């Protein structure tokens, strides 16, 4: 087995993965507490028609149009889900399932019409191509003879991360109360429905921004798994949010290293970083589930 060689490109992959993972993890805590974890999954599938329509309308693959189209459909997914479960009195899980499968199917039909001539690959949407993102340099920094090309994905994701961090920091109190007790939030005079849709909008925006770069599998995993892991480790929401961000960084870095290392042990070249990031975050969850000081399985067995 030869040594692991680490190129600058690997650093960028980890940075981009970590930026998107932290952006997701910041929102994840609130999704997990509101029992809406599957929303990330639903939105990331449902944005397909948004991408297709944006392409068909503008006729180009410019990111802005795609981004707007997908974000609008992402928010609509949340709206339709809420609407069907209220108007039709349907279980929320079921209504989520109906909405996102229908939108996905609609998107597939549109994409098949468009994709004959253009590379708009559903597989790319699902798996992402994080390994290729560092090649798309948007901005070159020149600091004292050292040239540093900053990939476009890193800039976009850093922006989304900043927005999410500002949202969580500024509205922390409101988010906390409306997550734990929406009725109390309403009596105290802030609109928990508005909070819900703000959160959903940010989930949609984050999903869209992330999967262009890193694939929706990372988004789904990072929205849920770090937050759930942190939920096993603490009872304080502020600690939970920060812990989940930290866990997301660990999963991103560990995922890329694992993607380079693990396949070599069994005789392969390397594998998808996105998939491995999800796997590493799963391993972290497993460890927390077993060893967590209060809520882990071991601690509870010992108590009994």
């Amino acid at each position, binding site marked *: 087995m030869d040594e692991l060689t680490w190129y600058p490109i690997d650093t960028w992959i980890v940075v981009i993965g970590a930026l998107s993972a932290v952006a997701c993890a910041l929102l994840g805590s609130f999704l*997990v507490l509101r*029992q809406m*974890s*599957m929303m990330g999954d639903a939105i990331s*599938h449902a944005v397909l028609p948004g991408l*297709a*329509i944006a392409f*068909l*309308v503008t006729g180009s693959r410019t990111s802005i149009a795609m981004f707007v189209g997908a974000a609008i459909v992402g928010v*609509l997914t949340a*709206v*339709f889900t809420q*609407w*069907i479960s209220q*108007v*039709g*009195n349907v*279980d929320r*899980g*079921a209504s989520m*399932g*109906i909405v996102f*499968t*229908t939108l*996905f*199917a*609609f998107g597939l*039909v*549109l994409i*098949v*019409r468009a994709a*004959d001539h*253009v590379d708009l690959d*559903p*597989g790319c949407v*699902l798996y992402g191509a994080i390994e290729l993102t560092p090649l798309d340099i948007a901005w070159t920094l020149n600091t004292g003879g050292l040239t540093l090309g900053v990939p476009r994905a890193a800039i976009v994701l850093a922006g989304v991360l900043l927005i999410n961090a500002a949202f969580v920091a500024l509205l922390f109190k409101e988010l906390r109360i409306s997550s734990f007790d929406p009725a109390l939030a309403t009596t105290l005079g802030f609109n928990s429905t508005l909070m819900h849709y703000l959160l959903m909008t940010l989930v949609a925006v984050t999903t869209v921004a992330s999967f262009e770069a890193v694939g929706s599998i990372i988004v*789904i995993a990072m*929205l*849920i*798994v770090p*937050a*759930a892991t942190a*939920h096993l480790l603490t009872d304080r929401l502020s600690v939970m949010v920060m812990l989940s961000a930290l866990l997301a960084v660990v999963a991103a870095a560990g995922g890329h290293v694992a*993607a380079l290392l693990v*396949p070599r042990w069994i005789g392969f070249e*390397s*594998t*998808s970083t*996105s*998939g*491995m*990031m*999800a*796997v590493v*975050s*799963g391993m972290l*969850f497993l460890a927390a*589930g077993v060893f967590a000081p209060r*809520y882990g*399985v071991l601690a509870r067995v010992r108590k009994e």
Partner: protein
Amino acid sequence: MRSERLRGAFLAALACLFLAAGAHAAEAGESITDTSVDWPGWSGVWHVASLRDYNTRLVVVSTTLLGASCGMIGSFLLLRKRSLMGDALSHATLPGIALAFLFLVAAGGSGKSLPWLLAGAAFTGVLGFGAVLLVRNLTRIKDDAAMGIVLSVFFGAGVALLGMVQTMPEGSAAGLESFIYGKTASMVLSDFYLLVGVTGVATVFSVMLFKEFRLLCFDEAYAAAQGWPVHTLDALMLAFVTAVTVAGLQAVGLILIIAFLITPAAAARFWTERAATMLVLAALIGALSGWLGSSVSALFPRLPAGAIIVLVAAALFILSLLLGTARGVIRRTVRQGALRRKIARQHLLRAIYEILEPAQSGAPEIHNGFVDLDDVLRKRAWSAGELARQVARAERDDLVAERDGNRVRLSDAGFAEAARATRNHRLWEMYLINYADIAPTHVDRDADAVEHVLGEDLVNELELALEQRERERAMPRSPHRLAGG
């Protein structure tokens, strides 16, 4: 209420706009990508509908069967509020497919043996389902997050494994992709036999175990207390879900099989309150969407069959949501309107009666007479317009006999109805005061048939209490004025 309806209307308009934009976009797209649709003639439609073509026959029959059995098994999932379990399960099959492929290649095969790939899929699917149950039962993590964790981690593992498989020099892994998006249009006879076998077995068994599954869905604790093997039944149900999911992976694809498990069942729920009827309906709706969807995609070969089937199922769902005879939106709106009118009528009559009462206090019996509408307005939180509407409606129903400017007099029937409504209302109030601890389960919301619900003895007792209370003024006052002043 009103703002909610307005919002509904707004959303509906938005949806239309969105769909219109989609249609427009599709038109615009033609100039760019030149995807003109060839409309088939009647002979083409007949050709597909009569299943002349061998390939069409295979596809149409198998998607119909799959729709029927998914609809049925999905009903159990819906009733257990586990609809998204199909989602988690179908994503969890991916690593199994990749692993099976790896092992087959390691064993010297080509890696494309369908039964083995499906066995691998079923294996990790069951593993994923088990992991969801474990996480939910052993930690403080809730259902939804448990499903999300399993879904993303298993799917991530699958993506990572596929990433390795694709770098293998021997045996291309290209065909594995078809598990994700489905390859409905290119089904072969062996796929068909497999599908028929699996869906047939799952369907027959879930019909045989219907009674047990129904109890498990509605009252798991009761089933356990009755000594039924709840865990075994749960595992069996899971086995059937896995079986149809894995069998359906090829037909409609990994993501779209989720729709087959959820949508027909949710649509059927609008038509009935009975589990057995719901099961049959869900099977029919699933079969219909499979048949229609695959027929349409046979007519328009450019359209992906799996997606069309899902869209047909979604259309049937929307129809059911609106028209369903048990829980449909239109039916519920009509019913709620009728109830609201009935309550408003009772309010009007009772207000009139309670205005007549103090005017004749001391008399052995209250007599009908003229009532000033301004007094009614003071008694109820109605606007003048609302009151005028209610009075006009009461006139139409022959409850109001005469109208003299701003004064009205009830008809005999109206007065009798008013006396009855007032009496029932007060009896219920008395009952709630005296028996507050058991009341919630015994209160009939429209206060109509006290005797039917409470029994004669109790009603007599309440009437006595009511009379006594009117004599003793020391009792705490009810929020409504009970009698005279």
